[in-house]
C-alpha cells in the first residue's frame, strides 16, 4: 500500500463534509427558490401597473396575514420615498382590506382584488410576497415573506447601476 492511500477515506470525508457544511455556513435555505419570473416580462395581470421608465414594487398581501401588517411600515416608507407600490389583495374581502389599510396605512398607488388567478400567474406561494419590476417591465427580484425597506433599496440601487 502506498503511504498516501491510507488518507484517501479521510480526504473523501473532508470533501463530503465541506460540501455539506458550505450551504449551512452560507445560510442557504433549501426551501427558498428564486422566482421563475426573474429576467422575464411581468405577467399581464394585474392591469394598470405603469412601468414606463421607473421601477415598481408589486406586493401581494391580505388583511388576515400578520407579516403583511408588519411590512406595511416599510412599504409606506418606500412609497413616500417615491417608489410606486402596487397592491394585490389575495383572497380577501374588499371591506376587510379597506379596514386593514385604514389601520396600517395605505402605501399603494393602485390596488387589485385577487381570488388567486393573479397570484398563480406570478408564481406566488403565499402572502406576503413582493416583486420588483424594472422600468422596462422585467421582473428583477422577488421577496417571500415580509419585505424590508433596505432590501428593496439595495435592489433598486443595483438596478440603477446596471441601467445608468
Amino acid at each position, binding site marked *: 500500500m502506498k503511504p498516501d492511500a491510507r488518507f484517501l477515506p479521510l480526504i473523501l470525508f473532508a470533501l463530503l463534509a465541506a460540501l455539506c457544511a458550505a450551504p449551512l455556513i452560507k445560510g442557504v435555505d433549501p426551501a427558498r*427558490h428564486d422566482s*421563475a*419570473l426573474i429576467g422575464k416580462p411581468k405577467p399581464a395581470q394585474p392591469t394598470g401597473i405603469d412601468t414606463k421608465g421607473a421601477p415598481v414594487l408589486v406586493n401581494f398581501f391580505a388583511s388576515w396575514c400578520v407579516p403583511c401588517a408588519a411590512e406595511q411600515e416599510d412599504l409606506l416608507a418606500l412609497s413616500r420615498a417615491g417608489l410606486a407600490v402596487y397592491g394585490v389583495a389575495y383572497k380577501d374581502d374588499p371591506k376587510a382590506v379597506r379596514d386593514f389599510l385604514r389601520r396600517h396605512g395605505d402605501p399603494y398607488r393602485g390596488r387589485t382584488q385577487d381570488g*388567486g388567478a393573479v*397570484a398563480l400567474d406570478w*408564481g406566488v*406561494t403565499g402572502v406576503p410576497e413582493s416583486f420588483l419590476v424594472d422600468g422596462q417591465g422585467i421582473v428583477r427580484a422577488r421577496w417571500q415573506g415580509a419585505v424590508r425597506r433596505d432590501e428593496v433599496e439595495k435592489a433598486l440601487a443595483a438596478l440603477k447601476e446596471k441601467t445608468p
Partner: protein
Amino acid sequence: MKKISAALGLLLLLSSPAFAVTPDEILADPALEARARAITKELRCVVCQGQSVDDSDAGVAGDLRRAVRAQLQKGATDDEARAFLRARYGDVILMRPPMGGRTALLWMGPGLILGIGLFAVWRLTRRAGGAS
C-alpha cells in the same frame, strides 16, 4: 380480545382514505380527470414541499389543481399543462426535477456512489485474494 381486534379490523375496512381533492374540483370527463390526477401527483406543493399537489390540503395546492384542470379543458397536452406551471413556479414545482447542470449530481449521485462502493469492494477482494 380477539373479537375486539376483529371488530377493529372490520372497522378499518369501512374507512376510506382522505383525499385532498374536493368534489367541486373533479372534472365531469373521467379521461381528463385521470390525466389531471396523474399530472398533479407529480407536482410539488409549493407550501408543504414533501407533498404532491394532489395530496395537499393547502389552499394554493387547490388552486394549482384547478389550474391544471382548466388547462386540460382548454385542450392543453400534459406537457403544456406542466409547462404552464413550470413557467410560473420554476423547476421546483416538478417532483422529478429535469436533468441539467444543477441537478446532474442529484440524478447521477446514487449511481456514482454505488460505483465507488463496487470499485472499493473489487479492490479489497482482489487484495485479499492476492494475500492468501
